[in-house]
């Protein structure tokens, strides 16, 4: 059509050279031919007769919906706790001291927290019956967000109703397809799921290895120079944890800040284990290193460890946090946190603010047991000396992962039978990106006395000797 018009214009002007007209003429003839020729159909399998189709449908056999699970699968039979999982816990009928629940500050059975929750129960009932956008926002939620923002000294905070969903919804809200995320190998599963949901390019760097990270950043820089227009719209993020759940050590935050400004990458910090543990007042790893909190773009934590409630929160500048109110999936499309849990969290924050010396006490206890667990033949301690969540790994593997898991289970059972409740760290073997080796989780809480810490250490030593030799 276009070349018809141009042909006509050129022809009428009479100024066009001959070859121009011939070319246009050929084009028009070609178009006429295309219009009238038969289209070429790809041979499809739709030349199957209906009878053959029915046969295919008859013959097809799907897999069973789920593969059968053997009765002695190590994860099938749960430890059942009778009563509350407090300091003294009853596991499978046996009374033990609890070294397995992340109740770092002992707020799980604090009377003040319980009475705050009771008052809230009387006023609001249990559930909120709606997401935040549709009458699910209660004044306790607003108060909790306010208190958390003040405590962490940021502009704004946002609450989620489930700890796992917090970081898993926060990452996809900012990082989309085409963006680049540099994440530590030892990142926890919730971060991995958030990254998967975001569909961005993931670049793993070796655990806590800043030279490896810098190498990746430099590679990205050279890529950018090849295509500057694309680089101008590709967002970059680094996702790290304050205190890693899988390895018990902390990230080198000052170096990360330097890298942030050098390569213009934003930092998302996951502080589930370090909130309420590190720092002079429990504000986490930024207080521990004395870093300005505005240098971190987003801090995400869950309230299920130190605050002994349920749920999670993200805090940071309003510029960043406000975006999640419309694009955080776990925030917009899910019911809000039950008010009694929010009230419990507020009361727990009050206690944290009024007693800043519990953090020192907790760290002293961690150091004590870290020292006491050194030197056990066959087991080595993985984690910083001030980390309340340690791992005990086998020095050498005994063949296969299955064997290691069985041995560790025997150690755990030995301890549980003699009054110390421990658990193995659980992973989904097929789903993790970098599967950590099997280990026993040892959790230190403020409520454990020194005798109990010593007893636990000596019992583990005994167990290791009896099982591994």
């Amino acid at each position, binding site marked *: 059509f276009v070349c018809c018009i141009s042909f006509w214009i050129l022809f009428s002007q009479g100024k066009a050279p001959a070859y121009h007209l011939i070319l246009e003429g050929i084009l028009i003839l070609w178009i006429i031919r295309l219009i009238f020729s038969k289209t070429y159909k790809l041979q499809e399998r739709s030349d199957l007769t209906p009878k053959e*189709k029915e046969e295919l449908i008859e013959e097809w056999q799907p897999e069973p919906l*789920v593969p059968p699970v053997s009765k002695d699968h190590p994860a099938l039979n749960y430890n059942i706790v009778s009563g509350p999982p407090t300091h003294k816990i009853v596991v499978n009928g046996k009374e033990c001291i609890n070294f397995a629940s992340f*109740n770092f500050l002992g707020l799980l059975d604090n009377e003040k927290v319980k009475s705050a929750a009771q008052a809230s129960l009387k006023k609001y009932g249990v559930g909120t019956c709606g997401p935040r956008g549709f*009458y699910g926002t209660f004044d306790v939620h607003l108060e909790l967000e306010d208190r958390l923002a003040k405590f962490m000294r940021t502009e704004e905070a946002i609450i989620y109703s489930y700890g796992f*969903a917090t970081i898993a919804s926060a990452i996809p809200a900012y990082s989309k397809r085409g963006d680049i995320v540099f994440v530590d190998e030892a990142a926890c599963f919730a971060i991995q799921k958030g990254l998967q949901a975001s569909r961005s390019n993931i670049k793993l760097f070796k655990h806590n290895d800043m030279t490896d990270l810098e190498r990746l950043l430099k590679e990205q820089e050279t890529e950018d120079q090849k295509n500057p227009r694309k680089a101008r719209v590709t967002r970059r993020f680094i996702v790290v944890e304050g205190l890693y759940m899988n390895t018990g050590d902390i990230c080198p935050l000052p170096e990360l800040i330097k890298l942030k400004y050098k390569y213009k990458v934003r930092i998302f910090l996951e502080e589930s284990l370090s909130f309420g543990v590190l720092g002079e007042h429990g504000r986490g790893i930024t207080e521990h290193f004395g870093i300005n909190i505005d240098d971190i773009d987003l801090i995400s934590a*869950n309230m*299920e460890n130190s605050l002994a409630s349920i749920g999670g929160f993200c805090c940071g500048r309003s510029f960043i946090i406000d975006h999640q109110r419309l694009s955080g999936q776990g925030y917009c499309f899910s*019911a809000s946190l039950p008010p009694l849990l929010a009230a419990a969290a507020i009361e727990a924050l009050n206690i944290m603010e009024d007693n800043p010396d519990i953090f020192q006490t907790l760290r002293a206890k961690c150091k004590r047991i870290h020292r006491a667990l050194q030197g056990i033949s066959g087991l080595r301690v993985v984690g910083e000396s001030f980390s309340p969540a340690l791992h005990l790994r086998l020095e050498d593997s005994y063949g296969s992962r299955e064997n290691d898991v069985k041995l560790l289970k025997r150690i755990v059972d030995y301890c549980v039978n003699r009054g110390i409740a421990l658990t193995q760290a659980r992973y989904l073997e097929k789903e993790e990106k970098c599967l950590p080796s099997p280990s026993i989780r040892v959790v230190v809480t403020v409520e454990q006395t020194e005798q109990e810490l010593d007893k636990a250490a000596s019992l583990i030593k005994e167990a290791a000797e009896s099982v591994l030799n």
Partner: protein
Amino acid sequence: MANPSAVCNGHLHHHHHQKQNNVLKSGVCKKNGITKGVKKNGVTNGTLYKKTFIEHFEQAPMYVAVLTFVGFGVGTIFGYLRDFMRAWGLEKRNVAQEREQQKDFVPLYQDFENFYTRNLYMRIRDNWNRPICSVPGPQFDLMERVTDDYNWTFRFTGRTIKNVINMGSYNYLGFAETDPNALKTVTKELQKYGTGICSTRQEMGTLDKHVELENLVAKFLGVEDAMVFGMGFATNSMNIPALVGKGCLILSDELNHTSLVLGARLSGATIRIFKHNNMQSLEKLLRDAIIYGQPRSRRAWRKIIILVEGIYSMEGSIVQLPEIVSLKKKYKAYLYLDEAHSIGAVGATGRGVVEYFGMNPDDVDVLMGTFTKSFGAAGGYIAGKKGLVDFLRTHSHSAVYATSMCPPVAEQIIRAMKCLMGLDGTTQGLQRVRQLGKNTRYFRRRLHEMGFIIYGNDDSPVVPLLLYMPGKIGAFARRMLEKNIGVVVVGFPATPITESRARFCVSAAHTREMLDTVLNALDELGDFLQLKYSRYSKSSHPELYEENRFEFED
């Protein structure tokens, strides 16, 4: 989004299924006269539906669609104008800005992504996120909130608006209550257990309360075993990836909830979408999948799973379960039913859509639901055969990495379920279910009579009332609040751009007076805002709106 076979010139299309026993022909003659839209599907229609299934998806007159587009157009033009003025400093920028030190970083948000939020949503933002300060029962107290700068910031005056009728919270059976007698056991358990768990199910987080709850849920639904999780959204997003993976096919309804879509995407399986509640579309997809196999490699699919919901929360439509089950049996697919809104809300004793259609719970492979809506708590469950639940206990992401449900919430579910099952010695549960049914039918009938366009099934307690034009969204919600009624309005992107709506959630706790107050207010407001678009009101089809049910003998 409206019934796909509807004619586009505004005629009413009643999606009217009538499949009865061959025995009972006489009782049905009256209704046969109006069966304009009886669908014939491929399966034998003898005993499929045991009672009439009426759904409405009336299309609005053409002028309404035109005016809606005009409304959005005007809003967009003004949006561009405002953006222009803001960019040139003629108008104050009200949004938070990036830090000075980070101004040379790649911008975090694209300007055009937030165009809709900045210019259209911001104008009527005061209708969402309204904070309340009482229990979300049939009436609640709202915190009074005013804005001095056209919704950019809000300020609380400190006053509360008392006893606003609640038509927005998902409180179908009225279990969101603060009666100390009702909450006696919850108070006791809270005192005993505290609020936290601090561990995952597989480590040290399984309490005896969870075991009790799971046994009760399995008994309630009539299946072998069940497993509970701490969050309803997470139940879908963390268990679908455990059940399906690469090489599997997911057939998902067009209007499925975000949690189902997220779970399907995270699983890595191939996703194909069928038209909403359209069995021909589903059958075609099933046939094509089995005949042609996986794309390109032509290998057979490992398994095919169909994701549907019991009641769709934005439409109010109920899934056509009998037909889906017969399709699934014929083509050997698996069925995952998300009963977030339908558990407790439909069915003669509140057992959900399976009971509503009189079917066997064993026909559905995976029964999933949430406790947030009808039980006034939080969390979700998956139930089915023991093999399925054992697999989830070992392989679900939630069991390994996420905290378990907290004990007072579990106790609330236990007491609500015992009440529903009659195990607490009263008939209160059954009364609540019946009251909900009565309220639903009354409310829908009156709205039809008044001439509003209402979507959805006659038995669904979710009632969407169509508003269409963007200007009316804000006006409707604000005026209803002035009359002391709290409603929920929804617009783009949760609904198609031309079909903004107000959504009412009827509750068993609503009294007849409250419903009448709401209906009178709606009548008045409907005339004022000209919302009564329906071309058909009660007088022309009295037979379709009677309240008695036809009881068919089997």
